[in-house]
């Protein structure tokens, strides 16, 4: 079971959180239109270690940045927590 250690609230089940992807647009894409399209719809869908955002919806209602291995669901690191920041910056 995936559990996330919220820096504010402590370790909680994943059902309390909302997932937020950090889109990674490939560097090779230079055309702005193509970059927008990629960012809106395309997914890297990485098998391995990803950096992602989680929103503690049923708790402190703040976003945090998490590093997780998608092959095992192991949470490697809670990188940071912040409030009021946009969740869509490139990793």
């Amino acid at each position, binding site marked *: 079971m995936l559990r996330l250690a919220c820096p504010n609230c402590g370790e909680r089940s994943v059902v309390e*959180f909302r997932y937020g992807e950090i889109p990674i647009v490939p560097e090779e894409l230079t055309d702005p239109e193509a970059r927008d*399209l*990629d960012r*809106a*719809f395309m997914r890297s*869908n990485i*098998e391995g270690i990803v950096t992602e955002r989680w929103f503690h919806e049923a708790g402190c209602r703040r976003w945090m940045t998490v590093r997780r291995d998608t092959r095992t*669901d192991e949470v490697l690191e809670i990188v940071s927590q912040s409030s009021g920041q946009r969740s869509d910056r490139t990793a």
Partner: protein
Amino acid sequence: MNEFVEHRVKLRFADPRRTYDVVIVGGGGHGLATAYYLATRHGITNVAVLERGYIGAGNSGRNTTVIRANYGVPATVRFYQHSLELYQRLEAETGRWIMHNEKGLLWLAHTEMGLRAERARARINTACGSETVFVEPDEIKRICPQLDLAGAGRYPILGASYHPHGATARHDRVVWTYAEGAMERGVDVVQRIAVSGIRTAGDRVVGVETDQGPIDAPVVLSAVGGHVTTLCATAGVRLPIRTHPLQAFVTNHYEGTFEAIVASTELLFYASQTARGEMLIGAEIDRQPSYSYRSTFDFLSSCTGRALALLPFMGNLRILRQWTGVCDMSPDYTPVMGETGVDGLLVTTGWGTWGFKAIPAGGEAMAEMIATGRTPEMIAPFSVNRFAADRTLADRGSSGTH
């Protein structure tokens, strides 16, 4: 393997050759159905289906085997209706028993908004050639007497759309039927061969890289579940796919008869009875993208809570087993099929939570595309280009799991 497989199904697996006309990556329902239709409809048999594990080991063996066509967008209603009809004829066509069983399917509404959605579903299905009617609570009670119309006081059942040709079939028999049909016509189905990448020369595909050496082919179809973005990335193709786990469980034997398939899109769960008498329950996808195939207690506790609100008799049952598959979710909850921008490389993906029901029509369409080199009209709207063209087919409410 059980007795049925040993005595009735003639599965003859092959060793890979170096060159084929067509290589299909992924020996699940979609890959094998494509091979079957290539052989039977188009006479193309110099084909290899490459499977990393054993056939049907992925999502073809991890779903809840529901066959239905009650979608919300004309293009998908027509496509799934065609698939539903191909399933109805599959036993007669192949002489194999896939345990196809028409049960009828109830989609429940608990709110005013839900009622509007189900009324609209009945209309749009009827207009596109799929049979769905709106039913009132007394009719719902007749179709499924076990339902608590009060929904434990919290989720009252106000109405439903009823899809009489909704059915289930035995998932591994579907896989074996297509595999056998393809094999006996000369298709090579290879197990325990892992495809690690797609080989290209310029803008063309020239074959695949495997753990048993390279295999050449001018046409490569990715019918991979779960790892499709990783595979296509080796050819520089970006896909609008994110992979989420989907869990399901079965209870022990329920001695009563539970004829219909019952689903609630608002409560996000669906239930049916298997041929063994077990109650089979599925629910929404997990929040996080993952390849872990890990079953969780969170899922059991939240899903059983919702199921018991509508089907209180299940409180007397025990959970026997639980499993997890992975769902390739597209942004608009509609499949992604066809060309990729690399010549000769085709994909059939985005099968999210609706892949099993699409096996016959998806396989038939991809076979036609490979044989003729043109995109069949039925799947043209499912092209990956729809996102750039602003022609997405948003149909979240029909996935049954969101």
